[in-house]
């Protein structure tokens, strides 16, 4: 499954350090992600998973090292970060839908304003995507009228509306009521089946096992182990990972 032999990685993370004041959030982290790969990042809270994910589209600035997307350095001020971000869909734990816009407007806003897509075309695209995530009947509702699971599915569709090359998921199911986790994971599994490259910070073991090509285990800002879901869940090497799995499973 892993296309590790295909020439260039989409995401190249090399020796990244990041500090919050004195506290190191990322310590010499390196990771490559290739076209079509599904990467799941696991680890205890405060291990730097989200920080790593957020540095990929520069929502966090790193202190040293290199992060590049398609060979473009995201931290180089000469490169237009807004252009790079248009290619990286992001889904947040708290959904962050725009509450003053309808569901449809949430989806059409970025393609219309940033890609210059005609409104009609953007709306057709939006409806197609809403259909895909199973909430086309809510197109004209405001986010506050939707359940958490529905909001998160809209948020995924909103990110997809920019037709990104890669999707970043930052604990997409952690803020959801348990009965709504499934509907969001289903959407993500389908997305993975369609061949979308994705990096996902999540605690959902089932999802990691069915979908992931690579599972990354982080602790205290370091990547301690990288491997296939089987390697990680069946034959964990690092004692910290063994301990972590014992607590979660």
């Amino acid at each position, binding site marked *: 499954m892993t296309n590790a032999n295909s020439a260039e990685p989409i995401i190249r993370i090399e020796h990244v350090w990041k500090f919050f004041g004195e506290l190191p959030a990322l310590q010499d982290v390196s990771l490559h992600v290739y076209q079509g790969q599904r990467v799941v990042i696991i680890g205890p809270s405060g291990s730097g998973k989200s920080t790593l994910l957020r540095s990929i589209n520069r*929502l966090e600035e790193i202190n040293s090292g290199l992060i590049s997307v398609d060979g473009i350095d995201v931290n180089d001020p000469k490169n237009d970060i807004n252009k790079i971000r248009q290619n990286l869909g992001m889904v947040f734990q708290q959904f962050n839908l725009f509450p003053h816009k309808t569901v449809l407007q949430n989806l059409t806003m970025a393609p219309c304003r940033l890609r210059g897509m005609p409104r009609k075309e953007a709306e057709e695209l939006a409806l197609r995507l809403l259909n895909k995530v199973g909430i086309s009947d809510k197109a004209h509702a405001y986010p506050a009228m939707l359940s958490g699971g529905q909001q998160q599915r809209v948020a995924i569709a909103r990110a997809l509306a920019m037709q990104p090359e890669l999707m970043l998921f930052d604990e997409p199911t952690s803020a959801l009521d348990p009965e709504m986790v499934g509907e969001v994971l289903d959407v993500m599994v389908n997305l993975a089946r369609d061949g979308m490259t994705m990096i996902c910070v999540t605690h959902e073991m089932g999802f990691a096992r069915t979908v992931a090509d690579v599972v990354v285990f982080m602790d205290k800002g370091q990547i301690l182990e990288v491997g296939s879901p089987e390697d990680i869940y069946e034959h964990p090497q690092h004692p910290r990972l063994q301990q972590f799995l014992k607590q979660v499973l």
Partner: protein
Amino acid sequence: MRENEENGLPAGMAPEGKIEVPAGGLVLPDSEKGGIVNAWSLSLVGAVVVLTVLCTVWPDPYLEILRFLPGGLVVTFEVTILSIVCAIPLGLITGLGRLSHNRVINLIASTYVEVIRGIPLLVQIFYIYYALAKFLQVSGLTSAVIAISFCYGAYMGEVFRAGIMAVPKGQTEASRSLGFNKVQTMLFVVLPQALRTIIPPVGNECIAMLKDTSLVSVMAMPDLMQFGRSFAAKSYLYFETYTVIALIYLIITLLLSKAVSILESRLNYYDKRK
């Protein structure tokens, strides 16, 4: 109970009878709105009734006073509206400046707010009037508008700043992650949401501004207050004149505060469920 308020009146309740008595006979002061509505209608009806009675029973001074004032009312509105038009953009710029990461811009905006807030409006009006007169040839109206909008720009700057800060950070992050730049994020995502928290206090500032325009009468601006003063000086009917002036200000501000609260509830459209 809430729904009654929004959808109009429950059956059998008179328009003024918006007192909410929850089941169990407990009168909870939970709905501030209801309280204000009552106080509001009482004040308005009171003011209108008193004014009408005064003018019909003793038309000699009161109706005469009332007839004398419209010219001043026009000037009061003129000063108020022009000042609002200037103060709101000034407030927005100040608020954005106070939030800016650029230290110079931030310092300028913050100093402006500190200085203006530390000087009484009446002193500012005198100061600007005489300072401008020293260097420039400006009309009373211009310097009145400059003084008031300068002062209220600082007050409103704080309102804008608070409103913008109240928009969750996740909104900015979501917008930036889609590829919107800082300006687009502010225009399309943050400000429209901030507006909802900003409108009511800005509306209240505007009402306060209308009242404070009475201060410009010190520069011989022919506003409502100045008209009243000159009528009183001519007729020696100080008590009667200022009664009418007070009632007129009261009626105007009550009507405007109602307009603000209607605007406020209209801005909540996207929170209403179903």
